[in-house]
């Protein structure tokens, strides 16, 4: 009887108390972005490996000239941006799975994003400097 009364008094759906936890905030966004960056990295990664193999034992001038070529500079920037993005998405899942203390989890999740953005920006700046320096 009292249980039924409670149900009658509170007309809000119990789902309301879930407070948007879990995957209900962004749906499949993370999963899908991880796949799209993975597909891009299959192509960009193979190109990167081939480029590095071509530049094995290259001296400074040769390596500098190769990276400065417009297509190489463009693909290199695409590669590093996708690489850091994909790395953050993957590390995020690992941290969420294995770090069970909430504050440590949040600190790590924010830290990898900060580091990845700094790393990506530094890589882009380096490529631009190489490409735009005569």
């Amino acid at each position: 009887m009292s249980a039924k009364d409670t149900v009658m008094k509170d007309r809000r759906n119990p789902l309301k108390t879930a407070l948007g936890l879990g995957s209900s905030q962004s749906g499949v966004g993370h999963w899908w972005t991880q796949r799209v960056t993975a597909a891009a990295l299959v192509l960009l990664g193979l190109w990167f490996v081939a480029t590095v193999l071509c530049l094995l034992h290259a001296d400074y001038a040769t390596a500098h000239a190769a990276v400065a070529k417009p297509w190489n500079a463009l693909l290199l920037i695409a590669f590093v941006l996708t690489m850091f993005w994909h790395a953050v998405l993957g590390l995020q899942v690992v941290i969420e799975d294995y770090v069970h203390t909430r504050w440590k989890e949040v600190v790590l999740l924010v830290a990898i994003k900060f580091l990845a953005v700094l790393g990506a920006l530094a890589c882009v700046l380096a490529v631009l400097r190489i490409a735009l320096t005569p």
Partner: protein
Amino acid sequence: MADMQRPLSPHLQIYKWQVQMMTSILHRATGVALAVGTLLVLWGLLSLAGGEASFNQFKVCTGSPLGLVLLLGWSWALFYHLCNGIRHLIQDAGAGYAIPQFVRSSWLSVAGSIVLTVLVWAYALMAGGAA
């Protein structure tokens, strides 16, 4: 409130070893290793942008015995994550879920990564000895 006394599912040590376990664990492990390896790409680009002296220093470090061992590890991690990542993309598309296919593609990822690593290092060594 969730019942905290609920029974837990059995953990890793209770299962018989299967290749799919290894490919799954290795995919994560190589992914984390490659995330650290992004620092090598960063270092290489910064050294090249920094001028001839810093680039030569980068080459000396990567060509040292420790550098070569790390490069070998990272190259295998990259090729494993690449092969197994393609396998996962195919599975995400809904193909290859029958257990025999699953086992076969697992071994294919492992074998493919080793073959690619050997090919790349054979090329690197033939193209002028260890850096």
